[in-house]
């Protein structure tokens, strides 16, 4: 399939991930959305790599590092969620509004 197909798929996946980030109440669900977005980004990268510069290694390094970062992000994010759970007693995002005002 052509490059455009993969780009569309990655765009859709990104959009779905964004939707999750913006709408879900559970903080962990938000993080799941973030993972979806990161996946979409990686997909995008690899699609470009494959169709534009398949011989280059830079895109792959990029994706690898991106994947690494996503993993680290998930780990730390979930740790933070546990912390919030401990402090606020809830992990519903719309209850944690100390930034209000």
């Amino acid at each position, binding site marked *: 399939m052509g490059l*455009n197909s993969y780009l*569309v798929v990655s765009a859709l996946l*990104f959009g*779905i991930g964004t939707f999750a980030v913006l*709408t879900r109440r559970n903080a962990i669900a938000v993080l799941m959305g973030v993972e979806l977005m990161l996946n979409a980004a990686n997909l995008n990268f690899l699609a470009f790599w494959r169709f534009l510069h398949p011989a280059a290694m830079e895109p792959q*390094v990029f994706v690898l590092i991106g994947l690494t*970062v996503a993993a680290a992000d998930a780990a730390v994010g979930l740790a933070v*969620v546990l912390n919030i*759970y401990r402090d606020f*007693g809830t992990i519903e995002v719309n209850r944690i509004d100390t930034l209000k005002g």
Partner: protein
Amino acid sequence: MNAPGAQIAFYSLSALTLISALMVVRARSIVHAGFWLLPCFIGVAGLFAALEAHFFFVVQLLIYAGAILVLILFAVMLTRDAAHPRHPQSNRMGWTAGLICSALIIVSAGLLTRQEWSVTAARPADVAGQTRALGEALIGRYVVPFEVASLLLLAALVGAIVLAKAERGPEPAPPPLADLGGEAREPAGAE
């Protein structure tokens, strides 16, 4: 690349990915949502394979489906008490967010597809070749990013431990939410 087999593979993998992703978003129960992530990641891995990025096919399965998914499920388990399935799982911004996301999708897909990419007919190297090249790149030219990434992982590791560690004795029971109006808390179960 346009062989019918490839097309079928692409469409089914995309369908798998996208439908799973949608289910992740729409699932009522957080546990279900977590589990829907699995086919999603697998679908993405499949797409990587379709893109002949074989190394990443494996890595995706290992890291995402293997590690990150498990991590997420752990976190879900640890915070299950706070997830009440009775409450709507999305906040009040459903329509707005939907609109914005649709716009986002349309704009970005539109922008991307309208470009005249100079697609090359070259094929990537085979797995061994790719992996070797990647390895050489990581240790050769891109050793610094590689090392930095390791440092990042170390920091994340330490940070996660510090953050998740119990600070004061045994964990107190989470206080009941005030606006439930006397509703009994649902034990276990989904969000």
